[in-house]
């Protein structure tokens, strides 16, 4: 049993541009969560920056809504920019 709130942990790696979700942990408050995250998730130099977010503050999509949320995008291939002939003069695209 653990009465302390749950926190989601995001770590930005040395070469990363954004914080990536790495896991969760329990802590009494944000300051302690940050320190626990340092000890649990960055002991092998995984990161240079940490965010902790109260798990309760995250509004997540529900697995039940998966069909209505994501399936409609499934047959709209024209949303991918793959229908253009790229002129030879354009580089680095």
């Amino acid at each position: 049993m653990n009465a302390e709130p749950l926190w989601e942990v995001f770590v930005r790696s040395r070469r990363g541009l954004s914080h990536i979700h790495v896991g969760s942990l329990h802590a009494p408050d944000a300051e302690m969560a940050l320190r626990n995250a340092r000890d649990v998730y960055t002991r092998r130099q995984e990161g240079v920056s940490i965010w902790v977010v109260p798990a309760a503050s995250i509004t997540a999509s529900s697995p039940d809504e998966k069909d209505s949320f994501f399936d409609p995008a499934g047959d709209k291939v024209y949303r991918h920019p793959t229908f253009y002939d790229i002129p030879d003069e354009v580089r680095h695209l």
Partner: protein
Amino acid sequence: MIGTWDDRSTAATPLAPLVEYTLGLGDDALVLAQRLGEWIASGPQIEEDMALANIGLDLLGQARALLSYAGELEGAGRDEDALAYLRDERDFRNLQIVERPNGDFAVTMARQLAFAAYQYELYGRLKTSADTTLAAVAAKAVKEVAYHRDHATRWILRLGGGTDESHRRMQAGLESIWPYVGEMFDPEPAVAELAASGVAVDPTTLREPWAAYVDGVVAEATLELPEPRFHGRGGRRGLHTEAMGYLLAEMQHLHRAHPGATW
């Protein structure tokens, strides 16, 4: 003053001052690392197991560097393992505070605050030591112990200002550790010359900056500074509390039962 151990006739064999000094600092780190390791799988939460294990491993790293250097200075062919595993109680130079049993979490946090704050002041000065090896060890370690001090501080603020029960137990934790605080700042005649030549740090100079930090934390946590009724001393001369023998038995038995065993 009651409850002091001051029997010089049974104390450790004296070594060259720099060996003695290095060994003392190394033994402090080694013994506290062993104590913190006892928390693994017994912490109040798995996150805290990790935190205390990390702190213990930082200390073990300091111990390895310091004991290896002490062995090298001594020149008698003893490496870090020989010093850690093959010495008996009277040859350990650690302060008594680090060998004190873990008690409950509050006792461990009281010990962590007192000792990490001491190491923080010590290493902060030792990093400019005239001895380049000690200076290098201290420069690395001071960053580690800054985190140890911060970790203990945050817990003590929360336990002191938490529930009636956490406040009561945190106060009891301070009371049980404070008799061993004074020894950290006792004069060490053996290192007086080293301190004068800028190699070692005179422990008596650390009390004031230590107290400026620790007293502030205790006050902010709405706790009372204990007024210890005795002052343990003698660790640097090999005189230890009853807890030490049991700690060594556990720490050393594997190495002694299987000499030369490696991973």
